[in-house]
């Protein structure tokens, strides 16, 4: 056991001390900081654009004059000067817009908006919307329809999804649940690959460096494999925890210094109100760790069977397939049908559960399914670790022999 601890220590330190590790740890918060900066700048810009603009209306049709309503950032006035002198005046006042409505205003592109600074899309939309409304109203009146009555029967429906639970009803924001579920699935999917590949590369490194034989003369191959897997798992946890801490710190600093009304992160938390954050984080940690143990053992077996990373392709396929398959199903189908029977099966089969379950957890999973899935996960990783270690112990000592699947099966059945 001491020896496993020693191996864990070496695997952990040799990775954490690498420059690449430090760069990735700081890169994510740095990107977040950059994101805040961009949001801040956008916000600042948009507030400049939101200064009140005065729209001077020259209405040749006489249909609209006086009917256009002032909005928060938009004031309508009748044009008092001639068009030519008003045009000259535009240079002096950037916030001024001239709206020219000809008699044949219904023809395409007939209505013109003149200004020194291009009006924002919102401004243009607002003018268009109001004009359309007025014109439509006029047409309805002309057709003899009582518009006042029409307005009263205009319905406006919006859905408020409420989940009925033991603690009473609660609001659930379906879009947020969907987002959180998919984000969790993507995180698990990527981390399993990234850190699983690290285990595989470590095994190949030991094999090609030929240090493996020295080490297995001191420890059992299984101890070495286990130490490596746990070491890399700790590296990944360190990375996640540092990311969370640094991201929170960056968010805090950003919300202080950039003086945005609300930090996007806080906004996000506001948005996912009703999402069970606690069980999602716990679920993520469990399914990442269990999934990592399950897959990294297989990655280690693949690493032991080859002499270089380029040869891994043929063995990677069966490992990546279930993950990729679940990932695609999850983000497309499962996130919209979390309680479907496909969802159930995918979230209890150990090979697909880490990704599939992450999609389902935000929507709530029956306890028995969760326990079944977790139990099978544990059985699953013990099983793959056992299978992988039997291949691994033989593979690491085989050189220059191109392994086939048949070969791996033979290795599995070797006695000690």
């Amino acid at each position: 056991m001491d020896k496993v601890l020693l191996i864990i220590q070496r695997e952990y330190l040799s990775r954490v001390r690498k420059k690449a590790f430090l760069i990735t740890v700081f890169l994510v918060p740095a990107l977040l900081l950059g994101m805040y900066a961009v949001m801040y700048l956008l916000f600042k810009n948009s507030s400049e654009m939101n200064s009140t603009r005065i729209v001077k209306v020259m209405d040749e049709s006489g249909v609209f004059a006086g009917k256009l309503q002032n909005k928060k950032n938009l004031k309508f006035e009748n044009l008092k000067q001639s068009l030519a002198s008003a045009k000259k005046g535009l240079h002096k006042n950037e916030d001024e817009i001239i709206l020219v409505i000809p008699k044949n205003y219904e023809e395409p592109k007939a209505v013109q908006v003149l200004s020194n600074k291009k009006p924002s899309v919102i401004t243009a939309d607002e003018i268009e919307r109001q004009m359309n409304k007025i014109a439509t109203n006029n047409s309805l009146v002309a057709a003899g329809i009582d518009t006042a009555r029409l307005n009263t029967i205009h319905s406006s429906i919006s859905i408020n999804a409420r989940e009925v639970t033991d603690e009473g009803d609660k609001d659930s924001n379906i879009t947020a649940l969907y987002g959180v579920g998919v984000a969790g699935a993507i995180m698990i999917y990527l981390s399993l690959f990234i850190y699983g590949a690290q285990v595989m590369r470590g095994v190949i490194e030991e094999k090609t460096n030929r240090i493996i034989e020295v080490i297995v003369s001191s420890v059992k191959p299984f101890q070495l494999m286990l130490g490596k897997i746990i070491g890399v798992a700790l590296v990944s946890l360190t990375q996640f925890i540092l990311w969370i801490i640094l991201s929170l710190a960056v968010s805090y600093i950003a919300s202080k210094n950039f003086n945005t009304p609300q930090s996007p992160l806080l906004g996000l938390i506001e948005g996912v109100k009703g999402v069970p954050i606690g069980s999602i984080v716990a679920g993520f940690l469990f399914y990442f760790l269990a999934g990592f143990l399950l897959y990294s053992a297989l990655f280690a077996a693949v690493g032991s069977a080859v002499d270089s990373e380029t040869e891994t392709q043929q063995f990677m396929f069966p490992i990546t397939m279930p993950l990729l398959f679940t990932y695609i199903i999850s983000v497309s189908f499962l996130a919209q049908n979390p309680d479907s029977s496909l969802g159930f099966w995918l979230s209890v089969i150990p090979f697909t559960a880490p990704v599939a379950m992450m999609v389902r957890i935000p929507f709530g999973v029956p306890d028995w399914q969760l326990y079944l899935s977790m139990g099978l996960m544990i059985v699953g990783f013990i099983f793959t670790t056992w299978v992988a270690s039997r291949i691994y112990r033989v593979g690491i000592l085989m050189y220059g022999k191109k392994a086939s699947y048949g070969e791996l099966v033979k290795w599995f059945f070797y006695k000690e």
Partner: protein
Amino acid sequence: MLSIRNIVKQYAGHTALSGVSLEVTGGQIFGLLGPNGAGKTSLIRIINQITAPDSGEVYFGGEKLNQSHIERIGYMPEERGLYKKMAIGEQIVYLARLKGLSHAEATRRIKYWFEKLKIENWWNKKVEELSKGMQQKAQFVATVLHEPDLIILDEPFSGFDPVNAELIKNEILELNQKGATILFSTHRMESVEELCDSIALIHQSHKILDGRIKDIRNAYRNNTYLVEYSGNQLMLNGNEPFTLLDQNTTDDGHQMRLQLNADTSVNNVLQYLIPQVSVTRLQEVIPSVNEIFIQKVNQKD
């Protein structure tokens, strides 16, 4: 010290060891000889508990081989290697701790060895920055650092330049004098004669010969002598006390190989020769290990 009894090891499709038994007494330098692919490395891996035999047993110091013996064995495999990106000092500390040394003790001993091999300023160097010979020195230190009772070296001199090979050879001899038993394998027969006390020959998974090197060679002496003489070429008439095996003439004189007849001694040969020619050299031809090996293999075939 080490007793190997009737070891059988089979891999899919071929047999690596069939019923090999060996005795290595403590304090010996033992050579495990045989051509490539004979089964030497398989046997060494079994002694190191890297693999287990299909049948047969290994006893270490009277006890059946078990995990506790790992710390008493030092092993340098044929394919040598270290972590490329790890500093040398730290790396040897790690390997020594896997063999049960404490951090402080390992550090102290590495300093001693590094000074001895004049590599003390390498501590923080990474393996990839070192030459191959340097890496091998470091590897040797890692092998013997925990002061094992049994040092197993698989093809120890392959890959070393002559200077380093000599250096390592002297270190091996010194360790042996201090009491360590050395077991090494090689396919280069000539390198063992000066170094080994005992040898075992392995060929195609079978042990074909073992014992003390002197005994083996004595057993394969067949009263053959090499004689050089000057003067006129000897005319043989059939009454001489030996049988001529071959002869040739060079600028310096004549040379012949002969085998004594039964019940004759070297003195009889000299008595016969001296009146006729001027003898410049007479030497017994003792077969080299290589010749014995070839002879044995041919017999078998």
